[in-house]
């Protein structure tokens, strides 16, 4: 498939694949990005990417999947950047990835903080970064509503 250079790219940074809501959340974000005119690109570790690839075998939602280390390295080097980045945070390491993207990307960066420890994790984000926070584990609807509100996808 030929790449459309005129369309902006939106990046979804997956966290550790253990969180049950992560695949649904990533597919919903990819769908919403596409609907808003962005090319959805996903990065994560190999297991997290495989789970998503299985859920979207014909790439209806996701345009491209990138190796996590390579994606961060290319963004930090200024070789590639994204107009909008969602960093999925359900562990402390996710806060570090949000902190990194907030520095290396010139685009808008939003930390989507979810899971049992969402409030505690969100309190660690003391750097410049937008936050969407919902203490959800299995029911993704509060998180979906919070994202829709921030992105004005609910209008």
């Amino acid at each position, binding site marked *: 498939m030929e790449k459309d250079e005129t369309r902006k790219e939106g990046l979804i940074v*997956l*966290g*550790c*694949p*253990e969180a049950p809501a992560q695949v649904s959340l990533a597919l919903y974000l990819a769908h919403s990005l596409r609907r808003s005119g962005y090319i959805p690109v996903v990065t*994560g*570790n190999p297991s*997290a990417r495989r789970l998503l690839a299985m859920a979207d075998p014909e790439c209806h939602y996701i345009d491209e999947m990138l190796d*996590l*280390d*390579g994606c*961060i*390295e290319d*963004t*930090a080097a200024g070789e590639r950047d994204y107009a909008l980045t969602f960093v999925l945070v359900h*562990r*402390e*390491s*996710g*806060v*570090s*990835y949000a*902190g*990194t993207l*907030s*520095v*290396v990307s010139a685009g808008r960066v939003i930390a989507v903080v979810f899971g049992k420890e969402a409030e505690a994790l969100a309190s*660690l984000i*003391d*750097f410049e970064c937008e936050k969407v926070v919902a203490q959800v584990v299995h029911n993704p609807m509060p998180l979906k509503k919070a994202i829709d509100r921030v992105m004005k996808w609910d209008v």
Partner: protein
Amino acid sequence: MGCVEALNYEILLRYCSFKEYRAFIKEHYREIYEVQPGYKIFDLTLIGVPPIPIGVEGDSVIFPYTKPCHGTFVLKVEGKEEIKKLRSRK
């Protein structure tokens, strides 16, 4: 892109948070440099909450290395060139 397994590293802390490694490096090393996420050391791109401290002791550098599922490790690796690079930063 570098690979951490190509380095001869010593693990000083494992599965720690960014607050823990900041405190550890500040407590144990007198020569400390603060860098931004995305800084390259041994061809690895550093991940973390800004600013990221890097300690220097003798010919070794002490820095955090983060992975999504395992949190952060603090590694000690010999690297005279990296020390030179850190010291020459303005």
